[in-house]
């Protein structure tokens, strides 16, 4: 009985995977157009939504501390101490992956061990596979996501943590490979030491 059920499930799974991948035997004389979804920011299907639909807004965000833009004039930047904890992101995503959380936890532990006047700057970066201002917003969104993780999940004082986006302007690797892009999609932690 159990075996029958298992077979049933197996057949079903095979059918599903076939439906998902399509037939493996390509017809002769047909040019295969690569799917648009590979490497597509947003990962979505073409948008085909009804226009004029009001969208619900939710109240979000942990406000940033009132730091001035010229952080460099009041803090010395220590880029080395937390460099090993640089966090990487999936393509077109600002989700802090579970696999990256231990790095954020290490940053939280470090900050909790420092005097309250030591602050933290999180810099968000993107790969080049988006338009420029799109990436500048996405980079900021990544930095904010890391900040929220530190504050809401790990109890770091939000008044010590601020953000900055570099968009796609400061890649670590100028290569055009997936490996290079993966390196560039990142959040960097900079310790701010009062001058």
């Amino acid at each position: 009985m159990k075996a029958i059920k298992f077979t049933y499930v197996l057949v079903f799974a095979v059918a599903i995977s076939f439906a998902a991948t399509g037939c493996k035997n390509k017809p002769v004389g047909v040019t295969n157009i690569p799917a648009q979804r590979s490497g597509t920011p947003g990962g979505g299907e073409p948008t085909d939504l009804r226009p004029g639909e009001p969208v619900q807004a939710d109240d979000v965000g942990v406000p940033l501390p009132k730091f001035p833009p010229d952080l460099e004039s009041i803090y010395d930047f220590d880029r080395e101490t937390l460099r090993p904890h640089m966090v990487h992101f999936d393509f077109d995503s600002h989700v802090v992956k579970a696999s990256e959380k231990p790095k954020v936890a290490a940053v939280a532990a470090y900050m909790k061990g420092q005097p309250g006047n030591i602050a933290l700057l999180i810099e968000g970066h993107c790969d080049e596979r988006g338009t420029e201002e799109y990436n500048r917003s996405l980079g900021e969104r990544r930095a904010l996501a890391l900040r929220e993780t530190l504050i809401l999940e790990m109890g770091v004082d939000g008044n010590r943590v601020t953000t900055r986006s570099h968009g796609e302007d400061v890649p670590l690797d100028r290569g055009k490979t997936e490996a290079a892009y993966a390196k560039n999609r990142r959040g960097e932690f900079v310790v701010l030491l009062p001058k």
Partner: protein
Amino acid sequence: MKLKAAWFFTASALMALATFSARAGAKLVVAGEAGGAVPVSISGFTGEVAQVLEFDLFVQGFRITTPEAAQFQITGSNSGNVVGRVTNPLKETILSKSYTGASLRRQAHAFADDIVQVTAGRKGIGLTKIAFKVETGANKEIYIADFDGHNAQAVTRDGVNVAAPTWAGNKFALYYVTYKFGNPVILFHDLASTERRTFAGFPGSNISPAVSPDGRKVAMILSKDGATDLYVANADGSDLRRLTKSREDESSPCWSPDGQWICFAAKIDARRSLCKVSVSGGPVQRIQTAGVANPTEPDWSPDGNWIIFTAQMGGFEICRVPAQGGTAELLVSGEDPSWAPNSRTVVFARRAGGSRRLSLLDVPTKQTKDIPRISGSNSQPSWAR
């Protein structure tokens, strides 16, 4: 803070000695309005003047052909000054004019504008300007130039990252983003006086400025409240308002020509889409872009009819959609389009060999032409209008 860069905008006093004999007789049907380019012939001009005439007409929906095949014949000379004449298919002279002052180049642009006006009934773009970003290695600066890329001048010489230049309504001034102070802040830069001041320097990132057509308000993306959202303020910085509240990354605002709506790129229910919101607040509404994915970088045409944008679909495609939304039309590969004041020509960036360069697109005919490149990578064009 003041820029040492001393450069001057010559208000090009073109003294046109007009011997305008527009015979308002035979009503001509102008071909090409439905999409085909208008055939014209050009003869008698040399060097730079001939090049300017051909370029200007090409990017405004004309194509150059032989006198026999031409709908309009353009003749004249440029020994000393530009002298030009245009005849219609009935061999009637519809424009006869000579130009003086400024440079031969500007005289040729002025003549091209007159040709566009008399043959198509549209205002030409020959004397308009663009602003853009130039990247040379790690160095990025803001430049302005004539719309065809000539007479380029550096606006910034800060040696830091800069981004997103945009014209301040009809003022000879720009807003742009600089990393000069550390975090990205939005500057206002008066190009006549070279004075500049911080417009938005809030905590976090201050990015993507967009000025209302009357120059009185500026939309932008700020993160000071803990989310990358759309804000609007008066041009003096007062009356700052938050227009969106979302956990996603809004980007690239632009204005409807009546100044009532701000269109921007957003992500809603896990889907990237174009949206609009009233400048006085209220619900965010989607603008349908059926047929393409991941729209960004919208720009609303000055006549109000179209929104042009970049679809990110592996590569980058310039598309347009009716301003109320609908089915998107793919135009050409490229990104960050900006309308000319004629609601017809568009400047955009395209990636070529690891860098970006600027091109012009005549939307109805889909004719494109690269403009000369300043060293390195050129991107983020904004057309003064």
